């Protein structure tokens, strides 16, 4: 029994290892580029997001919110988002409203508090899921083109695709440096409460210290990158409207995009019908 428990806890620890996190992040960023959602036009998805990311905040109708939630949840499933991201979503929603709920009970609230909090939960959940669908489901590079179409600064869209490119490299470097600390350093024993606290402090210390070598290594990297950007006409493009136009000409609204909007619209219409006849 004890052995299985030990095995189990080790397993969970392994799941939370840096390697696992890295894999999940990469999966989320690169692993779902062939889903229905990823193939949609980024502008259509952004418009769609603007609706489901904003409107729920201003409605108090439980049915309407539930309708939005179901639709958005369905799209999230279509987008095949990495498990960890969904887990974080659940954790986030729970802690956000569950936390408030407990505290307000403490200050003498009663059952009436439940309904506003249910409304709040639905709002938070719908809005978060909408953003997960759009931002996780869409290839970041396409997303950056979409944002640019809506007039977001060039620097932002550059940053998105640069991050998309550099992420695997940066993570590997971070992992290597942390490993150097782990292998050469000596972690305190992690048994008992005090031990656990000490271990935690040690871990945090290491992560902070790891940024010393990382900053220097990344500085070297940034220099080459910026020199190369300079040669490759980055600044030239930023000042030239024609380039932006060329870049954005690859965006095309297809029947699939229209269909996606129409189906969303259909679902919301059904919700309205239900609301008005109840």
């Amino acid at each position, binding site marked *: 029994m004890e052995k299985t428990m030990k095995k189990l806890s080790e397993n969970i620890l392994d799941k939370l290892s840096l390697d696992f996190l890295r894999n999940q*992040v990469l999966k989320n960023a690169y692993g779902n580029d062939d889903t229905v959602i990823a193939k949609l036009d980024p502008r259509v998805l952004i418009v769609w997001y603007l609706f489901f*990311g*904003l409107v729920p905040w*201003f409605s*108090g*109708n439980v*049915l309407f919110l539930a309708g939005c939630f179901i639709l958005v949840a369905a799209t999230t499933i279509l987008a095949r988002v990495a498990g960890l991201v969904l887990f*974080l979503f659940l*954790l986030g929603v729970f*802690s956000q409203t569950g*936390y*408030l709920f407990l*505290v*307000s*009970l*403490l*200050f003498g*609230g009663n059952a*009436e*508090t439940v309904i*506003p909090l249910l409304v*709040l939960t639905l*709002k938070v959940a719908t*809005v*978060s899921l909408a*953003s997960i669908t759009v*931002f*996780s*489901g869409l290839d970041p590079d396409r997303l950056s083109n979409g944002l640019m179409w809506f007039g977001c600064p060039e620097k*932002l869209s550059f940053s998105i695709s640069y*991050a998309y490119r550099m*992420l695997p490299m*940066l*993570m590997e470097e971070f992992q290597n440096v942390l490993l150097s600390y782990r292998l050469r350093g000596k972690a305190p024993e992690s048994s008992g409460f005090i031990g656990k606290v000490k271990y935690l402090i040690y871990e*945090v210390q290491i992560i*902070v*210290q790891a*940024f*010393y070598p990382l*900053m*220097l290594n*990344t*500085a070297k990297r*940034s*220099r080459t*990158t*910026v020199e190369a*950007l300079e040669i490759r006409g980055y600044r030239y493009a930023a000042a030239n409207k024609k380039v932006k136009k060329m870049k954005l000409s690859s965006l095309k609204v297809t*029947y699939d995009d229209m269909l996606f909007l*129409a*189906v969303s*619209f*259909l679902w919301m*219409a*059904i919700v*309205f*019908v239900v*609301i*008005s*006849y109840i």
Partner: protein
Amino acid sequence: MPRRRTESNLKPKAFYPELTYVLLEQDSELYKTAYIIVKKEKGIYVVMKREQATQSQKLMVFVLTMSLYGLATLFTELIPKFQVGIVEFSVEYFLFIPLVLGMLFDPLSAALGAATGELVFSEIMLGQFGGLGEVEKFITVTIGIYVAGRLVRNPKNQKMVGIAAMLGVIVQQFLGTMVDILKVQFAIEDFEAVEGLPEAVAVTEGFAFLNDVLFSGILFCLLPTLFLVPRLYGKIEPLLGMQPRTENTALSAIGVKTAIVCVIAFLGAIAAEFLAESGFELVSWEADWAESTGAMAVGMLIAAVAAVVVLVIMKKNAERAQMQK
């Protein structure tokens, strides 16, 4: 041989109508500062001093801060937080990274880089984008880092580095808390009517502020910044092809103008939220619309069904045309 002159008998700019050229001896401090261009003209070294980092150097600082802070926030976003009672122990605060870089390099680039990095790596890449809340975060982080970076004129001055680091956190946290309280107020209707809720929000937010400043602020901003700045100073700058910041090359102290710009930016952050939310309220969004007459809802339903049907047929046709081609 360059003409020998000491720095003290540097000719005042007024002697030179073109203003930007100054004679200088080669091994003087000013010569060695980063942001100058030296040209040899007619056997004399001519120095053109520039006030600020060049555009490319700013871009380097931006890319550097963005990558590092982005990476850090990506992990903190992924690591679940744990709570002891209502004290939240979170490592969400890696603000020391942009603080350090803002003190060593161009503060504005570091500030914008940090805000963008967080937005891009953790919010967009992971899909944790929180809508309007992110606008506020973006602006408060930028202001916090910028103020701290501008305050430090000499990174060797430990006391100043410490004060600036804490001040940066306090500014950022305080602005964030204010917006948070307002946000909850707007999200829940009849905020005042729910018993205990306003107090609860005020207490939790206030506590979170203190918790963040005292816990995260000291542990994750003050101490790491004090640890890193002296170690990196003089080492990291040459890697970017720059010279370390000194009293001479630092931007001048924060003026009234900068402060006003910061305040306006913050007001802008709040205004954006107020405007968006109250704007919708004016249309009295939910009540009337959601409970509109059944006929209208049915009309919508029919329109939607028609749209879907038409689109499916059109798509099929288009595909067939493609096949025939």
